[in-house]
């Protein structure tokens, strides 16, 4: 178990992390989502010991490791660009840690071969042992980098945007691979990413980092369904966020009176998930707001429609399993409708207003 408490880091005047506290359980897959500049890489580097925090503590199984240099922490890190040793073969890369680490190095060649082979087998790289790292593909490099770290049996494995440099196809495959490898070994993964799909799809729990602070720590479904603050909803990139004011029990957004979930009198922000909204003809009685169609984009399993609403762009996502994709013309007027229970309301501090029926639903 790893406990971070009040981790703070300044770069000159800029605050990269402000008092981040969290607990990382054993044998869990933790994802850390944040936009660029949110401090996610900094947090990882602090944990790994590559940077020093200005204040706060890092405890691993009760022992404070904040003052230990990186090589005494027993943590693994998989870098974004893989950082393989260019002058070694795949085998030597993976064997490096076992062979040369300070604590408890493996001296028996047979033992090294056995463990490296087993690890290469696990990541699906058997037969690549003698290749130079310049002669393998990006996805294979990614696996070597992972194998190199995992073979040393780290207590926690930190992954810094591990899929960032891969193409979409490979990324999807590696997503499954990563989960399988983690389940096999039972080692804790802390996976940093800027991609909300990755964060939502892979983690047992996820952390949303924004402006150097952990703004929400919860299981992915919960983060997705009920973002704790407006910022979280924004980071998730899955919500239309509307500004307005409550007026006679409805939410007044640029003249459109939207239905509110119960008990949300003080609401200042209103959020509706892309996939909770549907497009209807402009004169349909269920239409809550009117919008002008701009364009649409296929995302594989669905279509995302972009519309100009009363105050900014409105996105509607439609899964193809539900219906055939509708084709609209640019400039076409449409109505958008949704169920009042799907809407989320946030108060003036940006905090989610938890209504009674939602509590019931949870």
């Amino acid at each position, binding site marked *: 178990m790893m406990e971070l408490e009040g981790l703070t880091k300044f770069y000159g005047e800029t605050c990269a992390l402000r008092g981040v506290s969290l607990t990382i359980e054993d044998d869990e897959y933790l994802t850390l989502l944040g936009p660029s500049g949110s401090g996610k890489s900094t947090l990882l580097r602090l944990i790994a010991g590559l940077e*020093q*925090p*200005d*204040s*706060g*503590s890092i405890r691993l199984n009760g022992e404070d490791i*904040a*003052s230990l240099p990186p090589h005494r922490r027993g943590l693994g890190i998989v870098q974004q660009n893989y950082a393989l040793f260019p002058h070694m073969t795949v085998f030597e890369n993976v064997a490096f840690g076992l062979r040369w680490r300070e604590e408890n190095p493996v001296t028996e060649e047979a033992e090294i071969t056995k463990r490296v082979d087993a690890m290469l087998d696990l990541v699906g790289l058997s037969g690549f042992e003698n290749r130079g790292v310049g002669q393998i593909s990006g996805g294979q490099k990614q696996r070597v980098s992972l194998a190199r770290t995992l073979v040393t049996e780290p207590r926690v494995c930190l992954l810094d945007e591990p899929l960032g440099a891969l193409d979409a196809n490979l990324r999807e495959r590696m997503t499954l691979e990563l989960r399988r490898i983690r389940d096999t070994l039972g080692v804790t993964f802390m996976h940093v990413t800027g991609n909300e799909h990755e964060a939502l799809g892979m983690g047992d729990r996820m952390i949303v980092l924004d402006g150097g602070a952990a703004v929400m720590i919860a299981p992915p479904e919960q983060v997705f369904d009920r973002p704790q603050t407006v910022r979280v909803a924004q980071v998730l990139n899955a919500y239309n966020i509307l500004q307005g004011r409550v007026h006679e029990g409805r939410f007044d957004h640029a003249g459109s009176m939207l239905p509110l979930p119960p008990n949300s009198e003080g609401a200042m922000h209103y959020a509706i998930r892309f996939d909770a909204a549907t497009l209807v003809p402009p004169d349909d009685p269920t239409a809550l707001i009117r919008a002008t169609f701009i364009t649409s984009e296929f995302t594989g399993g669905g279509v995302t429609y972009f519309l100009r609403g009363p105050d900014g762009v409105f996105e509607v996502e439609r899964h193809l399993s539900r219906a055939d994709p509708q084709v609209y013309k640019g400039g076409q007027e449409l109505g958008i409708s949704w169920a009042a229970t799907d809407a989320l309301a946030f108060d003036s501090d940006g905090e989610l207003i938890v209504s009674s029926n939602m509590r019931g639903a949870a």
Partner: protein
Amino acid sequence: MSMQETTQKSALLKRNKKFALLAPGVIWMMLFLVVPLCMMIYVSFWTQTTFSISSDLTLKSWKTFFASETYFGALIRTIRLWLIVLFLTFIIGYPAALFIGQFVRNKTTQTVLLVACVIPFWTSFLIRVLAWRPMLGKEGAINIVLQKFGLIDAPIEVLLFTELSVVIGMVQIYVVFMVGPIAFMLARIDQSLIEAARDLGASSWTIFRKIIFPLSLPGVVVGAIFVSVMVLGEFATASALSGRKVNLLGNIIVTQVGSLKWAFAAVIGVVLTAVMAVVITLLLRVVDLRKEL
């Protein structure tokens, strides 16, 4: 241990590590570069008599320098020769660099050409200078060839043991220092930039003036610094190829040291340093050396 202490300690450790890395180099340069230069300035104010030198401070050596036609003349000659050599190395070196850096797109050929330029450096500098003598002399290779082809009737005598021979020798030796940096900068230019300009209808001359030359300018400056530093401090080429007729500041320093006139040598040294400082400062105005690396 509290967090505060830990951080302070690690920051201190980092600073100590940096200090340990820097200290040897900095101390070495302070002791053997800065101290000697300061000493030179100091000694230039010492009292020099024919047979001895004493540390009583005086401006006498300085007055002698500026009053003497020979010495002040040497300063003027040094500057003139430096400007001529700098100009010639640029004029002769730039087209060569342009060919290597822009027209040869094959990396191997580029390397071969650059290595070909560098190979002469594997022969002792002094021997290379001396090799100009049988080349330029009255019965030297150039005169023999020219006479054979009937281009001249009598051998050209001004070729050797004149200022011209010194200039020829220096240009040949130092032109490579101009070619190298310029070719390096030229080779770094993104070809798509030039293609884009061509697509927009720019003529070759415009492309050269507006894109290629400005981008190669840092190379020109670095080359100019190399050439200036070496030419201003020169004395060997002058004494080997001028038959002691062309005296540069460097030559005077050597003779003064030979006759143990330390204070006087120091004065000339300080003058030379000042010239050098002005030249380098001006050149560095054009280009930030650190950024170009």
